């Protein structure tokens, strides 16, 4: 039983069921890659066992000094990545509204021109020699996190004849139980490409799409240095074990 940097006793209740109508379905034909990669049979549903209630722990000791600074973590000494400097920050919460401490967040993105440092990306926008595109951090006791980066550019992609991804940052999130595992994308307030994107369009609810759009947060900017966007991430919450027979009470 490892420590998670928190003196709260671990919660062991099962997770709220996932709202599959709120998530995009597996089969979203306007996003062509999903057509042959989407399971077609019904999922097998069951209440969490220990295999889903438990999950790995990542300690702050694994983090390097520049892990949460994409402007510098791939740059040559004394140089920095090109682009609009931004801070992305927020809290990881569960569905009951509690901050979730000790959450490993990993993020990746294109550079300011919309180009990924990946051999599969052939977009004509240039690589930035000082930008790798990955970073990570672990949430504090109240679930808060922050990192520094450049705003990624939008880019065209081979789906329809003229489809463009809105500017976005990918997030991978580890909660306390493996059933909370989530990968999603953060979009930027005011980007008109959000509502034209076939990947975003797999989500049917407008409110669900808006839950992925970070707001410009002037209170967290650094004058003459960086703009800020606030992005809160909500993970599945645990059922409180009300009236179940637990000798220690609820």
């Amino acid at each position, binding site marked *: *039983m490892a420590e*998670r940097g928190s003196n709260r006793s*671990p919660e062991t209740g099962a997770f709220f069921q*996932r*709202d*599959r109508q*709120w*998530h*995009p379905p*597996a089969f979203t034909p306007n*996003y062509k*890659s*999903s057509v*042959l*990669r*989407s*399971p*077609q*049979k019904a*999922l*097998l549903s*069951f*209440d969490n*066992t*220990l*295999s889903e209630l*438990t*999950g*790995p*722990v990542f300690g702050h000791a*694994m983090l*390097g000094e520049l892990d949460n600074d994409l402007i510098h973590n*791939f740059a040559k000494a004394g140089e920095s990545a090109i682009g609009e400097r931004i801070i992305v920050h927020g809290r990881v*919460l569960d*569905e009951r*509204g509690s901050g979730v401490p000790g959450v490993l967040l990993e*993020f*990746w993105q294109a550079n300011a021109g919309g180009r*990924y*440092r*990946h051999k*599969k990306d052939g977009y004509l926008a240039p690589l930035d020699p000082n930008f*790798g*595109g*990955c*970073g990570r951090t672990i949430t504090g006791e109240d679930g808060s996190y922050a990192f520094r980066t450049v705003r990624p550019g939008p880019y065209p992609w081979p789906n329809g004849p003229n489809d463009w991804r809105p500017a976005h940052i*990918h997030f991978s999130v580890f909660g*306390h139980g493996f059933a909370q*595992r*989530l*990968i*999603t994308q953060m979009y930027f307030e005011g980007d008109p490409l959000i509502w034209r994107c076939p*990947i975003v369009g*797999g989500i049917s609810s407008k*409110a*669900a799409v808006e839950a*992925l759009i970070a707001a410009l947060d002037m209170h967290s900017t650094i004058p003459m240095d960086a703009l800020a966007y606030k992005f809160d991430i*909500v993970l*599945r*919450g645990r059922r409180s074990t009300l009236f179940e027979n637990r000798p220690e009470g609820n």
Partner: protein
Amino acid sequence: MAQSLDRLKERPSQTAGPYVHIGLTPNFCGIGGVYASDLGSAMLNGETKGDRIDLRIRVLDGTGTPLKDALIEIWQADANGLYNSPAEMRGAADPNFQGWGRQPTDMETGVCLFRTIKPGRVPFRDGRLMAPHFTLWIVARGINVGLHTRLYLSDEEKANAEDPILGRIEHRLRVPTLIAERQGDTYVFDVHLQGEKETVFFDS
């Protein structure tokens, strides 16, 4: 109108996309110098207790073509059936085994290889023992919500026959979709995303 239940909504999932390696296995895709090693790439050290085994996993699309841009994570108990997790209330797991691994599928062959140990049995909610198993989580371009399933072991016939999760599968001919075949110390497992042999995926 009644009072609001005042709960938040989980953030909707979005695909990990074709460049998932940049974020989760940067060294694998040539982005060196940011992290010393890719997280989850080595599950064992010399002190880890348990029988060494390999898992050789592929993920096949609806045409039977292996995915070459997928990423798989596994989560498992230690050799004694204990999870290395704060939510594990039954005792302390092997300190030399985190139980979590992450590997990309090979960009040429689509094969994903985990070097690990055989897990012990973990109790189901009612105390019955589940068969030794690995939780699998699969993401890739074209997968909108990470896919959750399990890998069971072909040489655990008796335990598999009494496993409560395998027992819930209505169409019995689909049970083998969750069972990896033992070949020496390697278990070979194909995940089928679609078709007659579609793997049983979970909502839990």
